[in-house]
Structures are given as C-alpha cells and as structure tokens.
C-alpha cells in the first residue's frame, strides 16, 4: 500500500514534470506503468479532463512541417501563417486571437511581454518530442493569457545512447541539417541537439493583375525578398540521485528572415532577425509523508530587430524581451485526491525602440485537485489560480469532469475562465500609425465544452462541442490622427462549434496502416463592437477546417498521404471581403536502407496539386508545389525515445 501511494505521488511528480516539460526526459521506469493505469492515454497530464491532443513529432519525421502545423493537426486549432517557409506563424484556438493562446517551450512561457502571439516558426522542429494542445480557457493550469487554450511544446528527452543526424534539401532553396546525441549513465542523461536551415522562399504564385478589380486576370509572379535562415542549440539533462531529481534545459536559437509583403504592396527591403536564449532548472524530492516538493527557476531572453523601409515602413525597431523567475510546488496525495498547490514570482521586461523600456512583476498562486471516484470510474478536477501581472490581477478557474461509461467509452466536460493582461505593445507601442493606450484592461474568456471519448483497441476518438465567450478583446480602432490606430477593449465575441478527432491504428496489420482525421466547425459572432460588425463573424476564422492523413509503415519503407482543408474565411470584421477555401494535398514516402543504425531516405511533396493561388487569411501567397528530400542516419527506431 505504501508502495502504491509512493507510486501515485511519483506519478503526480511525473505529471508535474511533464507540465514543466522537463520530466519528459525518461521518468523512472517504475512510474510509467502507473501512468498508463491511472491515465489511460490521457492527453494532457496537467489537466486530465481537458479537451486536449498530444501530437507526437516522430509521426511526421522528415516532412516539411513546422511546430504550428503539428499543432494544427488537432481540432480547434487554426494556423495564422504569413506566407509560409520560415515566415511568421501563429495559432488561434477556438476562435481566439493569436495573443490568446499561451505558448510554452518546455514549460517556459514565450514572448509574454510583446504580445501579438508567439511566432512558432522560431522553434526548430527537430527539437520537438511532442506538442500538447489544450483547448479552452486554461488559465487555471497554464497561467494568465490562455484564453483560447495553450500549446506546450515539449522537447526531446535525454535518452542515453541515442543519436541521429539528418540533412534535407528541396524546392526554393530549402536546406537544413540537424544532429543530436545523448549520453548518460544509470542516474543521469544529457542530450545535445543542433539544427540549422535556410530557404530562399522564391516560390511562384498567381496573383490578380489588377488587385482592386474583381476577377481580374491572374499573372504569375515569384515571391521576392522571402528568404529565411534559422539555427539552434538544445542542451537538456537530468540527474536522479536517490529520491531527488534535478532536470535542466537550455535552448538557444537564432533566426533571420526577409519580409516580402503582399503582392499588391511588396516590401523588397524589409527584414527581421532575432534570437532566444532560455533555460530552466528544476529540483524535486519525494517526501516520505506523501508530499512531493518541487522548486525551480526559469528564464529567457529574446531579441527581435525589425527593419521596415520607409516610406511605407518606420525604419529600424529593436526589441529586447526578458523574463525570469522561480516557482515552488507541493503535491499531496491523500486517498482519491491528488492535490497540488504552488506559487511563482517572475519579472518580465520589454525594452523596445517602439514602446520604451517597461517591466512588470508577475505573482501567481494556484491550487488544483484531481479527485477520482469509484476506481476511477469518474474524476473531478477543479483548479483555481490567481495571477497578478503588474497592475492587472485576476482569477482563472477550471472545473472538469470525466466519467467512464462502458469499456473504452467515456464522457468528459469542463468549464473555465481565464484572463489576459494587455501586452506591453498594446499599452505602450508608439510606432507609425499605432498609438499606445495605457488605460487598457484585461481580456476575459469563458469556455465550456464536452465530448464523448473512445479510447480503446481501435484507437482514440472524440467528438464534442464547445462554446466560448471572449470579452473586452483588445482591437485596434481608428485613433485621433487620420490613419492612426489605438488599441481598445472594444470587442466581445462568441465562438461555438464542434470538434471531431480520430486517430486509429485498427488496421495496423495492413502494412502498419494508421489513419487520422480531425474536423472543426467554428461559428463565431461579434457581440459588441462598432455598428455594422455586430452579428458578423470574426475575420480570419474559417468555419470549416479538416485534416486527414493515412500512413503506412510496414518496416522497410512507408509513406503517407494527407489533406488539409480550410474553408472560406472573412478578411474583415464586416464580412465584406473573403478568402476562398483551400485544399492542400501532400504525400511522402521513405525507405529504410538500414535498421540499426537506421539509415532512412525520404521524400515529400507538399501542395501536390500545385495550386498557385493559395493564400493565407491576410493575403500573403503560400508556397506552391514543394519537394523535400531527406536523409537520416541514427539510432534504430527501437532505441529512440
């Protein structure tokens, strides 16, 4: 019995580590079966009753995808790309703004000060082990800012003895090289991974010859000033002396990209460059009383230099964003209850030529419980968190529940509230036509959802509905000066919809066949705003989105075929202008020349149909047919994490 309790607490520890994304590095072997027993394929360890999807990166190995595209294989998630191939990429979840999605890299919140959404293209895909996508108002678990949901990007664990190297090359001058090696012993492991890549981004596209004339003839153009380059270093390790555990991670990345503008208004001289250095150190101890104590510190520094050439642009803007702090957490397992409480303190600073030098502290305290009933036939998970971010404070709360119906079938539901303090940019940015507004208030979100879940031998599937209310959303409205804009807490909007998710390997005997389908129906409505927009849909929120994929991997070779459908989306709040629906079909194949060590060659064709009219929701053209060839040498799949 004591062993069982110890295991449960250790499970809680593992869950917490997973939340911090540091425990993904090979938790003690005794814990793993407990996880399986207690949380059968539970997708979100930090919020066990949430609507969540975990996307494992290895399933997309060798493919032309970024972190955002991995996340967008989950329902409820929409990519906001600004041209593809190394350009700015953010996410929206359940109709939220990009700034309403809390993005964490190994548990470290990214880009909290500047606002506007985290650029996921800055995270090298090679680092990624999996992406946790949690939908709904998740501030109680992920902190202030998670209005639409949260995305936790978890880097690869340090598993001693594994290694790998991969080179890729393809269309439009796209090349990359990555390498990783992990060493260690019985109680420690250290992973080092490097990555570098670049693209010329000079893809062809079709664009109207007269952009202001409806249905004007299309002309063929080539994307210009669209090159990008990126490099990164990841060092991650763990040390487990006795009942203690020490985990650390350090990440260093740098990137540069040209900014092409849109076809009707190209920006041939614009560019940006930036880097990020982040790190975290965590210590934990399993106490004999059933208590687990954890403590840690994390920090990051980001730089972003942007040049937008006059007269259209405002010249050079330099930005330095830094945050650091520490937290402590206590986990207490008592009977059917798994109780967690913690607190953190941090300081963030944004020093920008556009918005000045500002800093603000964050204090937060939280408590949550995961209460199981009747041999885990049901569970209730309440959570509450108080955040004080500078002068803004608020309460985030979440209540979730799940009940096992019969066999692999269960139901889950949750409701939550979150808030997001205004970013420094929204408060203080003075650049070109943008005015500051230091009087802004926080944004608020409420969400409810429920789903029927199948989790059994056929795979995993869920089908459910959700609703969300976003209030006091910050939008830029016309300011005092002609052509100027000023942020205001002016918008209230609702979103509701359906989410369907199926991942099955039921026919795995047939060449290892796997299938995946996700579908999102999203209906948004502006409830408060300027006359003329009330009752309209939020722009850049397609009503229908679907992702489908089939893959085979019989052993020596394999392949996949996938399709992404994005329905019509409006470009403006009055729903006058729209971007048409798009369908992107991609296919790939690989062959294992050797299995141990693995030598694997692969190829992928993205946008197989070579649709050259593709564009994102902001009018930026997207790459047409793109070929990518990769060669990987490394540990055999059986030895890899």
């Amino acid at each position, binding site marked *: 019995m004591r062993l069982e309790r110890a295991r449960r607490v250790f499970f809680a520890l593992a869950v917490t580590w997973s939340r911090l994304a540091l425990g993904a590095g090979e938790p003690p072997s005794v814990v793993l079966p407990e996880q399986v027993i207690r949380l059968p394929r539970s997708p979100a360890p930090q919020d066990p009753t949430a609507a969540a999807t975990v996307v494992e990166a290895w399933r997309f190995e060798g493919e032309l995808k970024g972190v955002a595209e991995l996340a967008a294989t989950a329902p409820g998630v929409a990519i906001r790309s600004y041209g593809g191939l190394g350009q700015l990429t953010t996410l929206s979840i359940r109709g939220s703004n990009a700034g309403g999605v809390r993005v964490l890299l190994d548990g470290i919140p990214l880009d909290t000060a500047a606002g506007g959404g985290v650029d996921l293209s800055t995270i090298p895909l090679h680092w990624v082990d999996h992406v946790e996508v949690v939908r709904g108002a998740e501030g109680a678990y992920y902190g202030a800012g998670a209005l639409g949901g949260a995305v936790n990007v978890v880097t690869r664990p340090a598993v001693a003895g594994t290694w790998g190297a991969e080179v890729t090359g393809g269309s439009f001058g796209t090349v990359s090289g990555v390498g990783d090696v992990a060493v260690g012993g019985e109680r420690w492991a250290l992973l080092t991974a490097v990555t570098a890549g670049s693209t010329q981004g000079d893809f062809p596209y079709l664009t109207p010859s007269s952009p202001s004339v409806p249905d*004007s003839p299309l002309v063929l153009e080539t994307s210009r000033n669209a090159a990008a380059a990126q490099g990164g270093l990841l060092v991650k390790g763990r040390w487990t002396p006795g009942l203690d555990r020490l985990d650390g991670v350090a990440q260093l990345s740098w990137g540069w990209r040209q900014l092409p503008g849109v076809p009707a208004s190209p920006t041939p001289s614009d560019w940006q460059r930036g880097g990020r250095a982040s790190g975290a150190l965590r210590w934990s101890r399993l106490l004999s009383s059933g208590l687990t104590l954890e403590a840690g510190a994390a920090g990051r520094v980001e730089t972003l230099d942007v040049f937008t050439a006059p007269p259209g642009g405002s010249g050079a803007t330099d930005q330095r964003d830094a945050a650091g702090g520490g937290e402590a957490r206590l986990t207490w397992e008592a009977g059917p209850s798994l109780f967690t409480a913690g607190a953190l303190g941090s300081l963030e600073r944004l020093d920008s030529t556009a918005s000045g030098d500002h800093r603000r502290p964050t204090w937060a305290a939280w408590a949550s419980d995961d209460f199981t009933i009747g041999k885990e036939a049901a569970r209730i998970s309440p959570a509450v968190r108080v955040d004080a971010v500078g002068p803004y404070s608020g309460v985030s709360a979440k209540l979730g529940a799940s009940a096992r119906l019969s066999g692999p079938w269960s139901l889950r539901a949750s409701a939550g509230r979150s808030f997001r303090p205004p970013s420094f940019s929204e408060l203080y940015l003075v650049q070109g036509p943008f005015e500051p507004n230091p009087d802004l208030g926080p944004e608020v979100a409420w969400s409810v959802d429920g789903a029927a879940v199948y989790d059994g031998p056929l795979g995993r599937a869920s089908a459910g509905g959700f609703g969300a209310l976003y209030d006091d959303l910050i939008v830029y409205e016309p300011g005092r000066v002609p052509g100027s804009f000023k942020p205001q807490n002016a918008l209230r909007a609702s979103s509701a919809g359906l989410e369907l998710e199926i991942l099955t390997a039921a026919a795995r005997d047939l060449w290892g066949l796997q299938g995946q389908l996700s579908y999102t129906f999203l209906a948004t409505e502006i409830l408060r705003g300027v006359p003329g927009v009330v009752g309209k849909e939020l722009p850049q929120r397609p009503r229908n989105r679907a992702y489908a994929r089939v893959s085979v991997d019989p052993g020596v070779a394999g392949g996949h075929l996938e399709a992404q459908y994005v329905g019509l989306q409006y470009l403006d709040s009055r729903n006058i202008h729209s971007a048409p629906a798009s369908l992107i079909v991609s296919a790939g194949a690989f062959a294992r020349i050797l299995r141990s060590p693995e030598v694997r060659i692969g190829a992928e064709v993205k946008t197989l149909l070579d649709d050259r009219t593709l564009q994102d929701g902001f009018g930026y053209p997207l790459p047409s047919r793109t070929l990518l060839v990769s060669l990987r040498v490394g540990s055999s799949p059986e030895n890899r994490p």
Partner: protein
Amino acid sequence: MNSRAAAVLLLAASLAACKSEVVCTTGQVLCDGQCTSLQSDASSCGACGRSCGAGESCSGGLCCQGDQCPPAVYAACFNGNAVQGSTGVPAPVGAPVAVETGPISLAWRGSSLWVANSISNTLDRMSVSPSGLSADGPFPTVSVPVSGPFSDLEFLAEWNGLLHASNAAVGSLVIVDPDAAPPGIAEVPLGDFAFPQGMAFAGNKAYVALNGSGEVVVVDLTARTVTKRIDLSSLASAGASALPSRLAVAGDRVYVTLWNLDASFSPAGHGRLAVIDATTDSLVPSVNPVDLGGSCLNPAGIAVLDGTAWVTCGFFPYTATSAADITGAAFVPVDVSGPAPVVGAAVPVELAAPGSLVFCNCTGFAGDRFSGDVLRFDPVARTVTSRGLVCPPPSTGSSFVADVACGR
C-alpha cells in the same frame, strides 16, 4: 412668387454677383456696406436686412429652425462610421447615415452623395430627399477587393460621371463606373510605396498626390495611364519628407499641400505648397515651394475661392490627449491670381486642427481632425465665425471629421 422660386432666383442672383466690384467674394453681396451671404447669413437671409427669428438659422436663403433646416454641409464622421448633415450654424441636422468602416471622403455624383470608406474598402451611395439623407440601397454599394492585411481608400472624387478613388493600400487609382451592373472597376497602378491621397482634375488629366513617394503623378484619364511623375521631394525642409496630400486647381496651375514632416512624423518646418504648371506638368519655376508661414504646420486641406487658395493647417502628435496639444492651426490665404503666389496673413485657429475644406455659397466649412467639430469660416472677414459638434466622438474619445461636402 413662392419661397422656393424666390430662393432659386436669389441663388442665381448671388452667384452672378458673387464678387462685387468693390470687395465681396463669390456668393456674397453688399448689404449696408458689408459683404454678406444671402444664403447663410441669419441677419440677411435671402435679402439684405431680412433677419431670421430667434433660434433660427439661414439655409439656402431661407430662415429655418433646427431640424427644419436643410443641410448646408455634410460631414464624413470617420470614427463614428456615419455621414452627418449639418446646418450652416454648424449643428447636426437630420439623422446620421450609418455607413461602413472609416468614412474618409465624400463626392457628389449627380444627386447622389458618395462616401469612400477607408477601412472597409467600400463605396456607399446616399440620396437626398425631402426627408433627408438616406442610404441608396444596401451597403456596400461598391466593394473594392482587398489584397493584403490592410485596406486604405483615401480619397474620392467624381469626374466625367465616374468615381475616382485613391487606393493607398495598393498604390493605385481606382476608377468606378457606378452605372454598370455590377459596377465596373478599373485600376491604374501608381507605383510602389505610392500611398496616393488627394486628387484634382484638369482637362482629361488627374493629378494624384503620392504621399509615400513624394510625387504627384499625372494620369491620362482617357488612356488610363500615368503620363508624368513630378518629384516634390526636394521641396521639403532639409532632411524632411514633402508628403504631398491635397490638391486644388486654379487656372492652369495645380496647388499641392505638403505636410513637410520629419522621420518621426513631426513638423520639420512651416507647411508648404507645391505649384505645378498644368500645361507642362512640371513645377512652376522660381515659386516652389511656397512657404505658408510659421502659423501653418502640417497643411491638410485646400480649396480655391475667387483667386485665393485657402489652406487649412494644424498638427498634433499621435500622443495628443487634448486640443491644447494642437499647434500651427490656421486658415492661410494664398493669392493665386498672379504669376507668383502671395501668402497672406494667417487666420489662427484655437483648439482645433482644421482639415478638409469646402466653400458653400461663399461660406467656408472645415472639418476638425480632432474634436468632431465643423468650423464655419468667413473668407471675407477672415475669421472663424462659429463651430459646432457634428461628429460626436464615440467611446474612444476622439472624432475625426474626415471630409466635408456642400449640401445640395
């Protein structure tokens, strides 16, 4: 003779005798030795000495009270997304017409009043009836496709039955035939970073101010091509940008307001004018630039009345919080009747930044870019005679009267 016929006769008489041989300007007559607009002067409404009653105003030569007055001027209320009629007082009259996002420029085409909506990239048509201004069919009347994350129609004008809009987001002149079904749209590209703003017409040519590239382009409206680019960048103060904005034609010359701002969009010096010879489509030698004087910063609007080009000025930074932050606000007269423009004494304006400017029956009306007021200006007395709130600010606290157009 009924009052309507009398008004017509009076209007004809006033137009014919707009400028007396003595001093009066177009649209005014001498009453007891004073130049007076019989169309709008409540003390001489329709005839010298015919005073309106208490609380009444004079509109079109007829005394009227409050909502009974036909609009003397219409205002594009940018922040309120509406077009509002105003009496000559000025004061709102009739209900505002809700248009789409960011109404920025007005243009009459026949009996229809059109508005260009900057942010929604649309044109809306309104009609005037005895009951007032109203939407002429469902909005938008014309939707101009967007092609990027921003949309920005900046100016609208009518020429030869066609609507001409400057599309700053694309850098083009958009020509719309509203009679076609669906409305026909043609486009003349004006170059990268053009950011076209105001325009004016001479013959079959359109002169378009390119705020971004510091040029005025000449567009042949028959061939619909750019035939000439006139570089104004050298007319700014040292190290500053000219930023041409609005234009007016007088005789065979085109006058262009230059913001003359530095890299931080603050005034680099006095406001300036460029003078273009419309016969050669080149800068007039030895008169450029015209210095509008120290009382004029960031010149915004221009309108010509009887040989005088009146320029509105006023600057306030993006961070302005009150009208007290406005500097260099004035109406500046420039005598353009001779070979060299002569800048007269500026008429300073307190606590307002007049922008768009029209003369209606010899009375000037200017939209304040800050408060939502319309300023009534007497070009003869050279004074701001009154001002009134026509575009109430929405909750954001600011209100930009983007354009004014005479009532019809």
